[in-house]
């Protein structure tokens, strides 16, 4: 009987100890999770004179200051975009986009390299459009690439999904 009780006590202690560690870790991670952001990115290929074309959507979780890289590979083009969200002191987000483009035009044998850094203050849920190849005009005859970026609070998303 004593043995049975001892084993039971040890098991209960082990369970409580493990549970306590999980709670500690969860408590420690909570401030990070509260600040976590979800970046919804839609890459759109805009055909000439058309509103909709090919598009691809992706979502990534990050924390302010930690960047997400988007790489687009095409026939004659390589685009590297690094998106970094930052919290500003005024409570707004600052989205910084670094773009690098390597483009080989068919008629020419050389490769063009362009780089840019853009930033824009935005609010959570506000959509931003980034054009790494420049803004197309209505009558332009080539394809263009547009990135739609939306930043959401991961905590809000969790609360919404719980509801």
């Amino acid at each position, binding site marked *: 009987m004593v*043995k049975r009780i001892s084993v039971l006590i040890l098991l209960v202690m082990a369970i409580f100890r493990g549970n306590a560690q999980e709670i500690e870790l969860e408590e420690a991670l909570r401030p990070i999770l509260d600040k976590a952001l979800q970046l919804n990115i839609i890459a759109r290929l805009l055909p000439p004179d058309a509103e909709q074309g090919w598009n691809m959507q992706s979502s990534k979780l990050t924390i302010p200051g930690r960047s997400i890289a988007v*790489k*687009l590979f095409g026939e004659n083009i390589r685009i590297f975009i690094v998106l970094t969200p930052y919290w500003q002191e005024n409570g707004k987000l600052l989205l910084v986009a670094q773009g690098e483009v390597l483009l080989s*035009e068919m008629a020419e044998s050389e490769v063009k390299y362009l780089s840019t850094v*853009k930033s*824009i203050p935005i609010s959570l849920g*506000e959509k931003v459009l980034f054009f790494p190849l420049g803004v*197309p005009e209505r009558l332009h005859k080539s394809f263009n690439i547009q990135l739609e970026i939306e930043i959401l609070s991961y905590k809000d998303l969790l609360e919404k999904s719980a509801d």
Partner: protein
Amino acid sequence: MCPSGETLSAYLDHEVEDPWKKVIEEHLTLCPSCKHKIDEMIFTREQLALGSAPDFRDSQERGRSCLARLNSMQQVSFWRRRVALPLPAAAAAVLLMIILGFSTLLLSLRSDYRSMSIRTQPSGTSEVLVTAPIEDLERMLKSLELNGSRQEIIIQLPKESEFFVVGEAEMFRAAEYKRDQPW
């Protein structure tokens, strides 16, 4: 000279051959002491021959009960089985349990050991403290270097799409952008 008791017993068992048998017989007629001895032997033998067989039922019953007890001891469940430990071994085990208990208690009190804590400064910034052995931190940093500190999305654009740079890269709020509007 009188024959020994063994010789008399052998005579009684018809194990003594002639001429010694006749000598003993003649002696017994003359020696009342030996005659008395041989008579006692004969009487004892007759008494033994007349006596009934001993009653072993009690001892058999005791033996059966002993065997039953042994069998029942062998079938004792794990929780009721007794374990015999030498006193020094038992003392060492108790000491070890006490030391382990204290160690566990100390480790649980030092909650920041090999763990992470986050302190929020008055300015609002958060300070993340990670307590871990140096080897673990080095391994973590190497792992971060190898894996890269940022996440990547790789998108393969459709084939047969030729791109041109139409201007400088731009970024706008979606609400402020209209395709028709030249920027």
